[in-house]
């Protein structure tokens, strides 16, 4: 049965995960890039490693049709993205509106004030 995976898939997953972890670590510890760029790169590396482990450790790609596991996993990712980025968006916006300096700057920028 393919779903159980084989030695090769575990070894590939393990090696790729180590490389991705060390790359992200080296990048941060040596301050290789500007903050914004470094943040984007480590986020990208984490997402790649997430996919590597889903494929090679959890064998998500080897499911027989209909792919219910994949459906549930995609739904999970959608909920997680909405939850995390939605919270950050709302809280930053709230922060902005409740800060007197930012609000005054915003009001001054409006026509007629």
């Amino acid at each position: 049965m393919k779903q159980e995976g084989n030695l090769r898939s575990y070894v590939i997953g393990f090696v790729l995960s180590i490389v991705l972890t060390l790359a992200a670590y080296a990048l941060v510890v040596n301050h290789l890039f500007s903050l914004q760029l470094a943040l984007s790169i480590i986020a990208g590396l984490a997402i790649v490693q997430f996919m590597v482990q889903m494929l090679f450790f959890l064998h998500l790609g080897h499911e027989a049709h209909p792919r219910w596991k994949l459906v549930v996993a995609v739904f999970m990712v959608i909920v997680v993205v909405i939850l995390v980025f939605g919270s950050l968006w709302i809280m930053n916006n709230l922060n902005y509106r409740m800060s007197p300096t930012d609000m005054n700057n915003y009001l001054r920028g409006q026509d007629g004030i």
Partner: protein
Amino acid sequence: MSETELALEHQRADEKTVFGFWVYIMTDCVLFASLFATFAVLRGNTYGGPDGRELFSMPFVLAETLILLTSSFTAGLAMLAAHAGKRKSVLVWFALTFLLGVAFLSMELTEFAHLAAEGNSWQRSGFLSSFFTLVATHGLHITTGLLWMVVLMWQVAQKGLVNPAVRRLTLLSLFWHFLDIVWIFIFTIVYLWGAM
């Protein structure tokens, strides 16, 4: 029902159990997502206290990460041995996974004890409250996984690789891989982002 039909019926039941457990794991991801969201919102709220850059020892965290990653790999090897029907290798690989898990957990508790001893417990700031909640929830899952592993190793040692045990091992290995996946994000969001 003939022998083969019966075997097929059992296999279908096993697949259903594994799928049900998969749904649980995906739901657990949503629990972690809410804790990650809380952490991301509160990470700047240090209330005049120390932030991640001052608190986290990066080589220590890297070691923790590699230990957990290796344990996820050895859990995979244990499952390969289980499907090949090699009882002794199953026990050896799971024992190794267990030891690596214990090493990871002791490092995490050492870090917590260290933080608390310096007055930087969860009561210090919003940042630390959300840090402890997120990381300790993961640690609690690891603890549960370790207890489960002991019970299953005992079952395999007693009864051999017969069906309820092998099915449970499959679920445990899914759980263990999932915990390593959550840790990727803790490593990136809490520690790497915190060290910048």
